[in-house]
């Protein structure tokens, strides 16, 4: 936006309206994005979101990186739950290749995805509460988030930017002490979610601040391109894990929480319940986790194990070919979507058969949600804008790409 477009009009100069810059650096913005609010008293007359502060050109970079090299860039999309982006991207490339990954890899992907979903919802609910003024719930929840990141560190060696998946499976198996720690986490997290509910759900201040704020009808939500918790809070039971199952989600027993009004309070309730459902899924994964390989046994897709590369000629050749010439990709285009914490995370990949994707498009779940921000806050008070923005869970990393 140039300076002209935010210059004050005659009416604004007369003192009726006031322009307030919300962001680019503000605790609620989860990254850097800016909203120009035009206020009359405390009422919002106009809200003009402005984004691009975190635009890194991920899609452009992807065109010059091999399929494997793109994985670290997916970490930085929604950095609160980076493993889910890794999983979503790997699933997309596997769809393009038309390969099936081993059972254990699928199960571990589900396991870490659900852990990431919990971590993401913790950030969203906890920080939303802090923004509105309820600090305590945040502390109880963030202790659990810390545990999730410790688990990620154990599995992938990294807390935030995990890069855990590879095309055709996982970078490595989870260590033996991962499962017992997750068991303990299940108990503790359940208690923390209950604690959070006791602090917030029946809290009259929380209720007053969130009830009816940002309400949206199911038709409007669909029309605005909502997906994920925000769509479900509006009353549309759309969850890709159930609707278009991937990674064997159809074999797990879980429910989809649905709200009625789509306001901030419903979004909060949906997220709380989704955390419980994720805990249920994790328990089922732990029960059925069987030993086995975690990456496909096809050296045209996945690297052979290091000891073989060092000792066998053929493996060394495969390693060299895969690194230098990449995976032999079919020509075609696919769109693959997974249910990330914020909604439908889609990857549209056009392949011309080369080493790099010809075009890679990331469909960020929070961009359409954020585009309805002005409609949601028009006529509300300035403090409500903070509540709505927090409940949308706009993550600038995936918004701007």
């Amino acid at each position, binding site marked *: *936006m*140039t*300076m002209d477009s935010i210059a004050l009009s005659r009416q604004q100069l007369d003192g009726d309206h006031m322009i307030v810059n919300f962001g680019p650096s503000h605790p609620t913005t989860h990254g850097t994005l800016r909203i120009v609010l035009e206020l009359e008293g405390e009422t919002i007359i106009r809200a003009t979101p402005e*984004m*691009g502060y975190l*635009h890194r*050109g991920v*899609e*452009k*970079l992807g*065109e*010059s990186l091999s399929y494997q090299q793109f994985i670290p860039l997916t970490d930085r999309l929604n950095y609160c739950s980076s493993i889910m982006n890794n999983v979503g991207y790997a699933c997309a490339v596997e*769809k*393009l290749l*038309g390969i099936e990954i081993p059972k254990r890899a699928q199960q571990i992907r589900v396991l870490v995805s659900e852990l990431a979903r919990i971590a993401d919802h913790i950030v969203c609910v906890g920080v939303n509460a802090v923004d509105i003024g309820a600090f305590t719930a945040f502390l109880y929840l963030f202790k659990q988030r810390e545990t999730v990141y410790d688990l990620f560190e154990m599995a992938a060696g990294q807390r935030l930017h995990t890069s855990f998946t590879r095309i055709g499976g996982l970078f490595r198996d989870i260590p033996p002490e991962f499962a017992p720690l997750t068991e303990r986490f299940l108990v503790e997290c359940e208690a923390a979610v209950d604690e959070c509910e006791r602090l917030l759900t029946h809290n009259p201040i929380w209720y007053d601040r969130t009830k009816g704020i940002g309400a949206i009808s199911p038709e*409007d939500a*669909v*029309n*605005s*391109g909502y*997906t994920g918790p925000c769509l479900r809070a509006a009353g*549309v039971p*759309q969850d890709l894990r159930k*609707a*278009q199952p991937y990674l064997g989600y159809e074999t797990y027993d879980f429910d989809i929480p649905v709200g009625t009004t789509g306001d901030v309070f419903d979004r909060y309730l949906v997220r709380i319940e989704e955390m419980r459902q994720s805990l249920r899924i994790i328990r089922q994964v732990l029960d059925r986790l069987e030993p086995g390989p975690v990456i496909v046994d096809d050296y045209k897709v996945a690297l052979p194990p290091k000891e073989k590369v060092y000792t066998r000629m053929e493996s060394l050749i495969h390693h060299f070919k895969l690194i230098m010439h990449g995976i032999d990709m079919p020509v*075609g*285009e*696919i*769109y693959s*979507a997974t249910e990330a914490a914020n909604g*439908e995370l*889609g990857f*549209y990949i*056009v392949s011309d058969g080369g080493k790099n994707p*010809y*075009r890679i*498009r990331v*469909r960020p779940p929070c*961009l*359409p949600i954020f*585009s*309805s921000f002005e409609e949601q806050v028009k006529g509300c008070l300035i403090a409500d804008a903070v509540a709505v923005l927090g409940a949308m869970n706009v993550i600038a990393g995936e918004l*701007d*790409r």
Partner: protein
Amino acid sequence: MIIEHIDAQLPGAITDRHDFRGDQTIVVAKGNLLALVDLLHREGFQLLVDITAVDWPERPGTQGVGRFDVVYHWLNLASQERLRVKVPVADGETMPTLTGRFKTADWFEREVFDLFGIRFEGHPNLKRLLTWDDFQGHALRKDFPLDGGDPFCMEGCTAPYNNGERARG
């Protein structure tokens, strides 16, 4: 299934189709897009998942086939059917906007305009979305250099970049 419906109701609209890994794709001409969108909306394809574009600079710019493909993804929430619609468009040609039917189209079309330079006729606020207003060029075109050309991409920039000079300190 939806493709048969389209064939029955808009005969001749689909110029090409393919089915790769279960993704249904149809190619339609620009002139038939709005009629097709009305039909899709009636048939329950109410979630416009995504709008993007693909640049094919080597493709001959003969009639009907242009440099870009504008790619729409629809999802039918009732039947969970997905449909991809591609519309070829030449460089400098405009596309009809879908903002009247889908609110999602607003920002997605702005993004396509920003990164590919395809204009959408009738869009209420067609401004750049991700890059700044006086950014030169369109970043996702194949002929746009990967490093942005000029190291700070600020050639021709006015305020607030100090006449192309990068602010120090």
